[in-house]
């Protein structure tokens, strides 16, 4: 779990996770093309995310595809969020989203 928090404690790595959430299964090249980071930096961040199991990789021929793996974050949520709290938090989250959208 330390690895998960360490991996998340960096804006660039969170940005990478956001990119994968928007489009799962990207190659290193695809991720680099849309970010203002060197290929080397992206590669290093991905390794840390993979080490923390936040990114899963699948080989397709010669390509390595990167996927956002939500399981560790789900496990953290399961640890600290009780089952009755979850629906209330979901309701709050829905409300926040609805209010933010109506502001736009």
């Amino acid at each position, binding site marked *: 779990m330390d690895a998960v928090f360490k991996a998340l404690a960096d804006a660039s790595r969170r940005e990478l996770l956001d990119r994968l959430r928007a489009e*799962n*299964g990207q190659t290193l090249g695809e991720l680099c093309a849309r970010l203002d980071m060197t290929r080397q930096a992206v590669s290093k961040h991905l390794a840390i995310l993979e080490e923390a*199991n936040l990114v*899963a990789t*699948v080989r*397709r*021929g010669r390509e390595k*595809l990167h*996927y956002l*793996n*939500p*399981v560790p974050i*789900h*496990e953290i949520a*399961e640890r600290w969020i009780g*089952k*009755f709290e*979850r*629906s209330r938090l*979901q309701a709050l989250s829905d409300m926040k989203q609805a209010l933010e959208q109506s502001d736009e």
Partner: protein
Amino acid sequence: MSKPTFVYVTFISAPPEKVWHALTDSKATAQYLSGFHVAMETCQGGASLFKRGDQVFNRGTVLVCEPPHRLSVTWHPELGEFSVEEPSRVTFAIEEIGTGQSRLTIIHDDFAPDSKAPATVGEGWMRVAASLKSFVETGKGMDLLAAVEGVNA
């Protein structure tokens, strides 16, 4: 070869044989699927049914059966709008990492072109992975339907 649509990875503190048993044994699956269970003929070409009681929700066929490392089944809902679509595919890969530790990868892919099904997969597999891990490690699964029922409460 199509790009996998969903990939989930979880580490489980148990050898691959135990994870395999939890995935394929009907009684074991009932322990962590909150009222559902899987009835599977563990051989290539065998049937794989996802059921609640006698009602079949998913009717699949076993494509790959290599105990205790690789299981691939077709995924074909019996009910609802996706029952008319071509089946998709779910693969479970279990690797041993260190002694008595497994890495379970769940891949759901091969959806029909233009299928709307991927949008509905959502948190399902993630919850199954968490409940399976909990069951294998502690003997007790999680309540998969808690969130859903909570909303209705």
